[in-house]
């Protein structure tokens, strides 16, 4: 016979201020099968837990209901206390009197009545609980880092340095990400390439890191500790082992007029190319869409000039099947381009550029060798306007968020311009200056005070061309919304940072959530900022939201620690609150009819097929089976199955039913 113990917590005054805890304990104590019922100020405190442990022994309890706060907070605490008291931890339930009752109601009798009702449901439920055992699953100690920007690089190196294997997947021909395109970096103005390239080389040389560039994730199956990932290694049309990276092919390729992505379209590249001189790996790829041979069937000049005969025109894509224990997503971000702005000419005016283009102009390795020349005629602009918040914080454009990095890089751009064009004038239109961060505000002040950048607080309504000049019209809100008009030679838009292309597709392959802007979603905005809602998949860098290098790097190290912690165990322990499909005796084997709708509805791909065979090996029935390593206990399949063949351990149909019936019945 059930002997249930009930422990009503005051939570200081959080519960007792509106709920009469004494009355709850007393009323519940009179219920059938309740062997012990008491109240206490703080159940989660040491004495509170001891109360539970002692009562289990003293009253020979078969189940415990702690009537306190949300199980999200203290369920582990009380389960552990029960285990220490000698009771299976899954025979402990929590009745949420705080979030579900005391916090949302006023002090009166009805509130206490409701508290009693909540506890009653849990008493009825716990009577039907069964002792469950935790599930153990093995861990494959190889991590995958998707995306080779600075965040991915940092994460990969940190994981590799703990002694674990890392596989890095980068979809472009080189790692480095956006940081490789930057000229100098705020707030120190050190050269981006100089601090980045040593890290890139370290990745390439690290014995624990395997790097696949020009590769993308094809599919992901499995679960924490046991992912099975298929990766498509796109054909580079090159034997990477034979190639010495001499670069002869890239100089001889007759196709030279392809807009260079790395230079943001401000330079040209051949069809066989290395994206930038410090690329890792420093091996070319053939861009098949633009290669004369693939278009016209004739050319092969690269093949002829290659001294080691490394070109492979018929190379197919390769699919790698990898066993992975944890995944770090570090696919970064993209920015909007000038064509997103009808008010600034839809990208029609050559001298309205975006921030990344400015980075390339300011970069010593860029198309102008670091001289600030405007794209239209190569003149050095004498008057330059920077427009911050281009697209960001603009609900009308569908981007309500702040892109976070633009205030800082705009100050940097204005500064770099002034350092290079001493006699030039730099103007910045801004909404607010957001420069929180170590040495960040000092950096902006320097731009204003030492480099005399003209900061104007207000939005720009329109930019148009007149007599070869760009007319920037805006208001100065600090001068009582006075109209300002600046005649500029060049305009730089600090365009909004947006999710990287393909982010949504990847999120769906990984089964992790993303927000309405297609940025990857963290499991909890405060307490789990690097975890996703899928166990074993972590986030690093700007794939979560636009962020600068220090933030991206710290988060990357955070993600690496999560992976290392996971890999420090040989087995994972999981809560046994999973679904099961019933089994009956032959010839039915299960009431499951094998419609497999549960399989398509399961958000975690946890449902497999099980075949029952006769002696002659003939399959007589195929039914659903839950992989307990994968199942997250969400219960979706339970609700969907028409024949009610699935049940959720710990939340079984009979348990839930008993809770509902308890509410409907008088006591």
């Amino acid at each position: 016979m059930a002997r249930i113990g009930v422990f009503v917590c005051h939570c200081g005054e959080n519960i007792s201020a509106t709920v009469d805890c004494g009355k709850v304990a007393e009323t519940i104590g009179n219920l059938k099968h309740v062997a012990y019922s008491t109240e206490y100020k703080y159940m989660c405190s040491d004495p509170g837990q001891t109360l539970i442990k002692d009562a289990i022994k003293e009253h020979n309890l078969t189940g415990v209901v702690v009537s306190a706060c949300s199980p999200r907070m203290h369920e582990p605490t009380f389960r552990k206390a029960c285990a220490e008291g000698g009771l299976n931890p899954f025979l402990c339930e929590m009745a949420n009197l705080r979030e579900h009752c005391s916090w949302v109601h006023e002090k009166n009798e009805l509130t206490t009545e409701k508290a009693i009702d909540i506890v009653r449901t849990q008493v009825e439920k716990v009577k039907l609980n069964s002792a469950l055992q935790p599930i153990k699953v093995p861990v494959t100690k190889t991590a995958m880092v998707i995306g080779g920007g600075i965040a991915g690089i940092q994460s990969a190196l940190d994981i590799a340095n703990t002694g674990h294997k890392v596989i890095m997947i980068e979809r472009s021909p080189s790692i480095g990400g956006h940081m490789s395109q930057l000229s100098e970096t705020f707030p120190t103005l050190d050269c981006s390439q100089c601090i980045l390239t040593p890290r890139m080389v370290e990745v390439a040389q690290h014995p624990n890191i395997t790097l696949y560039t020009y590769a993308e994730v094809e599919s992901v199956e499995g679960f924490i500790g046991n992912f099975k990932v298929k990766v498509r290694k796109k054909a580079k049309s090159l034997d990477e082992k034979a190639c010495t990276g001499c670069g002869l092919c890239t100089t001889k390729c007759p196709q030279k007029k392809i807009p260079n992505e790395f230079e943001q379209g401000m330079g040209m590249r051949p069809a066989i190319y290395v994206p930038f001189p410090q690329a890792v790996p420093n091996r070319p790829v053939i861009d098949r869409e633009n290669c004369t041979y693939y278009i016209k069937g004739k050319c092969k000049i690269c093949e002829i000039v290659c001294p080691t005969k490394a070109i492979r025109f018929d190379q197919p894509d390769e699919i790698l099947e990898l066993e992975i224990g944890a995944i770090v997503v570090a696919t970064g971000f993209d920015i909007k381009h000038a064509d997103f702005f009808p008010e600034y000419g839809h990208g029609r005016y050559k001298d309205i550029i975006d921030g990344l283009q400015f980075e390339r102009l300011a970069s010593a390795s860029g198309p102008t060798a670091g001289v600030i020349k405007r794209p239209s005629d190569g003149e050095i602009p004498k008057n330059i306007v920077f427009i911050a918040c281009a697209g960001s914080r603009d609900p009308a454009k569908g981007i309500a968020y702040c892109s976070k990095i633009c205030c800082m890089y705009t100050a940097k751009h204005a500064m770099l311009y002034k350092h290079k064009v001493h006699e030039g004038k730099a103007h910045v239109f801004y909404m607010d200056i957001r420069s929180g961060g170590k040495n960040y505000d000092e950096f902006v002040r320097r731009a204003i005070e030492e480099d005399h950048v003209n900061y104007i607080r207000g939005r720009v309504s329109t930019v148009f061309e007149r007599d070869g000049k760009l007319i920037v019209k805006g208001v100065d809100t600090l001068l009582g919304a006075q109209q300002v008009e600046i005649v500029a030679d060049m305009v730089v838009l600090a365009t909004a940072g947006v999710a990287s292309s393909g982010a949504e597709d990847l999120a769906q392959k990984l089964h992790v959530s993303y927000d309405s802007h297609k940025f990857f979603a963290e499991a909890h905005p405060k307490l789990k900022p690097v975890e996703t809602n899928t166990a074993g998949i972590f986030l690093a860098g700007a794939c979560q939201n636009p962020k600068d290098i220090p933030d991206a790097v710290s988060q990357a190290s955070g993600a690496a620690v999560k992976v290392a912690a996971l890999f420090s165990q040989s087995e994972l322990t999981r809560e046994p609150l999973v679904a099961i499909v019933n089994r009956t005796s032959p010839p039915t084997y299960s009431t499951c009819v094998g419609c497999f709708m549960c399989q398509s509805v399961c958000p975690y791909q946890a449902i497999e097929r099980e075949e029952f065979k006769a002696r002659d090996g003939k399959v007589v029935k195929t039914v659903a089976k839950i992989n307990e390593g994968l199942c997250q206990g969400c219960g979706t399949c339970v609700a969907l199955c028409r024949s009610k063949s699935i049940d959720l351990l710990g939340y079984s149909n009979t348990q839930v039913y008993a809770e509902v019936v308890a509410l409907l019945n008088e006591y």
Partner: protein
Amino acid sequence: MDNLILRAKELLENKTVQVVIGYEAGPTGVVRPAFISDPANADSLIYDERCVQNLAVYLTKPEVKHLGRIAIVSSLPVMRSIMMLISEQQISYDEIVVLGISADGVLLDIADLSVMQGYIDKSDLSNPVKYKELLAELKKLTPAEKFEYWQKELSKCIKCYACRQACPMCYCTRCTVEVNQPQWISVQSNAHGNMEWHILRAMHLAGRCISCGECGRACPVGIPCHLLTMHLTDQVYNYFKVYAGTSEKMNSVMSTYEPNDKESFIV
């Protein structure tokens, strides 16, 4: 109908199938399903406007499956039921031969699954006209009037489950109503329990009902329970632009999610 009889004989004689499921007239002239395994008996097969029962319901029955390969006389609703059963992995096309019959009663040459697919593709898959009219009438009622209407209709239900037995998509070996741990649906025939049963049945057929009307025809007390499932057929089409039983590979709308699904029904 000579063509149908000839074809049935041929299939039985050359042992392509072991049984032909079709219609015949009983001694009193009432049309009933026929299970013919002897070619000599094939002459009793008929097909006319009285042959409305959805024969696909037999395809999932173990005692019928046991007979061997089956040829089945199939009007459009039967073909759609077959598609549905294939997509829900209850039967495979190899186990059957479809003796398709067009809307004007002509024997079709359904050589394989793709021919059947083609025939379904060019057919009107919305609810049959007579039911559409009834549904339109019901739509005119206020919610309170609708509730009253169904209360009254459903109060007649004797919970014989003939509607369920007649429906090809109700193939569960154990129906929810037979679950008594816990007893989700009350056993008694009372206002509350009847409503529970019919809401449950309708929800189980949402996105799966192929609008044959068989459930309503089977009901001994004349409850138009097919209008509930047919209404859901309309709803599912409005939201997801799919009709049930249109492809062997179709995923059930209720168990799949597409990123561009309408979400306007979420309140």
